């Protein structure tokens, strides 16, 4: 019966093939005119934001420990931990979306996110371990 049903339904292979969307391979540049849906771009932005946060936080932490922190850090919050956290979040939010918008069409940007994240975690850990 299954065989009969299959035999009775006309199958237009050419029309099925026409419905398949060809997407660019990961890590390859997008062809001109192609669009990327919002989901992957937003996720990539979050990854860039996290990398930015870790570097900003680590940098401000080192600046605070060495006594060369910018004056605006104290203006944000009286407790340095909170001030650095807020500045790190705000900076990463502002920086991540333009950076992600510029990078997402580049050849190796998506593939580099994992490595950049891992490198940032290690650098952050070394910075706060070395200088408390």
């Amino acid at each position, binding site marked *: 019966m299954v065989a009969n049903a299959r035999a009775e339904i006309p199958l237009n292979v050419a029309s099925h093939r026409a419905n398949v969307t060809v*997407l660019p391979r990961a890590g390859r540049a997008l062809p001109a005119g192609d669009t990327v849906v919002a989901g992957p771009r937003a996720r990539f932005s979050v990854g860039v934001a996290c990398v930015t946060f*870790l570097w900003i936080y680590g940098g401000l932490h080192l600046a605070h420990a060495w006594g060369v922190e910018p004056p605006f850090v104290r203006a944000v919050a009286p407790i340095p931990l909170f001030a650095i956290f807020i500045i790190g979040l705000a900076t990463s939010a502002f920086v991540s979306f333009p950076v992600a918008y510029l990078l997402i069409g580049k050849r190796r940007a998506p593939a580099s996110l994992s490595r950049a994240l891992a490198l940032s975690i290690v650098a952050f850990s070394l910075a706060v371990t070395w200088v408390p």
Partner: protein
Amino acid sequence: VSGGVLRAIEHAHGDLGWLATLALYHPAFLLRRPRRRAVGAAVAAAALVTATGALGAMIYPAYRVVVKPAIFAAAPLVGELFERKEHFGVAAVVLAWTGVALHVGARPEPFDVRAPRAAFVAFVGAAVLATLAALLGSIVAVTQTF
């Protein structure tokens, strides 16, 4: 805020911290395979570590005034450990939510295929840093509390 309330929050912060640390290893383990879905585990672990961080932030101003000077007077090395612990905790919270954002909704499509790998890296980093924070926090709590 009375000392009793601060002590209660401190104990809840410590217990919840270890629970959140263990919870973070769950998505870190599951997401080693990029096609695996673990949204519930990821969100729950991130929520737990955020609640832990929120409790820590609540008692941190009082800690700086009451406990920190006593720790540095009694055992400066332990005080230095705590100064590191708080930074590890902050990074664990941020990495956990980054892992959630990278994991939720990621599809095995060509352009999106790297997001699950980055989510795995974020959760492994969050779990390791949360472990360090919990260990250092326990050492500090043995030395001095509210």
